[in-house]
């Protein structure tokens, strides 16, 4: 029942994108987001669309699969489009009905904004599709490490994330077991109205929470037994390694920045 839920929706693979260092990918996304909002005309937007298509090809993932990532935000995009079409004024009036108009600037903005949102979402889902959650956590930890000096608990955040990742499958399995056990006792999770169904979740949630707390307690003890004493003086198994791929990404980043800067108006 729960097996079909993809976690972090990571799709293992061997493509260029899969094998690039998560730190470069994270940094590149930050840059890309900036560039997307710097672009302000047809040329820059076309360049960005072209670049995104190229990146999708590079990931060797199926195109339709990636487009699916737009599904949950479809509504948001549509809403922004409608808002802009009706509210933004300026330029030629395309349509008029009483005091109500659709004007050139409105349509233009609507198209640009939806392209921007779409590209950002496509790009970040490319990141999660090609990077394992573990690598992502580790990449984040490394990038955020300098902030540790100004009091950000980087080590704790990273540890929390990785323990969460480690326990998601265990807890899923457990939820599955509890559902089966409760079903065997005659509980019904699939019929009735929303309130009823929500109520029916209580006999799943309570045992799950109790067991999660027990697990947490035992894990804390096991961590202590293995000499855990917080982040001070701790080293990390070094797994991330920059390669030629990351150099390539840096070069592409520089080129893309230059091109967008050049063509924007």
């Amino acid at each position, binding site marked *: 029942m729960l097996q079909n839920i993809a976690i972090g929706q990571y799709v293992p693979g061997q493509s260029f994108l899969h094998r690039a260092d998560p730190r470069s990918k994270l940094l590149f996304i930050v840059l890309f987001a900036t560039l997307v909002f710097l672009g302000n005309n047809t040329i820059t937007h076309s360049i960005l669309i072209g670049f995104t298509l190229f990146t999708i090809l590079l990931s060797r993932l199926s195109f339709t699969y990636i487009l699916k990532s737009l599904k949950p935000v479809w509504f948001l995009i549509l809403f922004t489009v409608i808002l802009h079409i009706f509210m933004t004024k300026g330029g030629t009036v395309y349509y008029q009905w009483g005091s109500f108009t659709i004007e050139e600037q409105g349509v233009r903005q609507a198209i640009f904004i939806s392209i921007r949102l779409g590209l950002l979402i496509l790009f970040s889902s490319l990141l999660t599709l090609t990077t394992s959650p573990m690598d992502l956590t580790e990449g984040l930890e490394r990038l955020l490490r300098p902030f540790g000096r100004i009091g950000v608990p980087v080590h704790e955040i990273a540890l929390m994330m990785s323990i969460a990742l480690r326990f998601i499958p265990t807890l899923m399995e457990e939820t599955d077991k509890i559902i089966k056990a409760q079903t065997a006792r005659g509980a019904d999770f699939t019929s009735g109205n929303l309130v009823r169904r929500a109520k029916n979740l209580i006999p799943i949630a309570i045992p799950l929470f109790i067991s999660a707390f027990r697990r947490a307690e035992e894990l804390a003890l096991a*961590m202590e037994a293995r000499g855990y004493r917080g982040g001070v003086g701790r080293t*990390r*198994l070094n797994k991330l390694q920059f390669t030629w791929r990351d150099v390539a990404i840096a070069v592409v980043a520089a080129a893309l920045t230059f091109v967008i800067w050049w063509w924007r108006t």
Partner: protein
Amino acid sequence: MKPENLLTFSDVTFSYDGEEGQRVKVLKGVDLSIAKGSFVSVLGHNGSGKSTLAKLMNALLLPEGGKILVSGVDTKDGEMIWEIRRHVGMVFQNPDNQIVGATVEDDVAFGLENMGVDPKEMRNRIDEALLSVGMEKYALAQPYRLSGGQKQRVAIAGIMAMRPSVIILDEATAMLDPQGRQEVMHLARRLNREEGITVVNITHFPEEAIDSDRVIVMENGEVLMEGHPAEVFSQVDRLQQAGLDVPFVVRVRHELIAKGYDLPFELHQEELVEHLCRLLLTR
């Protein structure tokens, strides 16, 4: 030469805070010593204080009264606590609740990271430890996909990487299927024999204690019996009074003797079978 003692308890007492704020005495003056390189089994009824004993050995708990020495170091010495925990590794009962890492090698690295081992050195130690428990093929696997026995072996690898002198298994086989139990016991025996690791195996299965160097029986916060497995298991009535099982072979012989047959004391099945066959032939 007298064997060197790795762990010594002298008159150790310990209490937990009970429900109504009163102190509940869990260990009532325990004296014991565990020789370096030995394989010691600890048996005892539920709540007899076995886990408490284990947690005192690596300073997860500190004694209320008395003294515990690990390689001559008092566990109350706050400065040595990390060194003690490195020396005394501990495997717990539930394999799912002691694996920290999202991959096998991440988990083995955990203890080393805590110790502040250099990342380059870490790599070698992880590979070495995984090899010693026979899990080298699973370095990148996710722990939840492993069998119970494999998970416990990963936990042992995490300890082995820290180069310990003692491994305490606190009912580490209790949640495993027979095959997993065998895997873990085989590994513990091999590490004891080949790498000289002292093993303290806390267990509910008297079978696991047969081949130990020593058996310690706990009852109600005290050491009830202690000695060579043959010595301890020959006192069947006393053990059964304490609510404890004896190995199958011992039980069979005990019952046959009660029926009037004459059989020598044996711990191993093959030997008992041989005696039984001989008995059949000579009748």
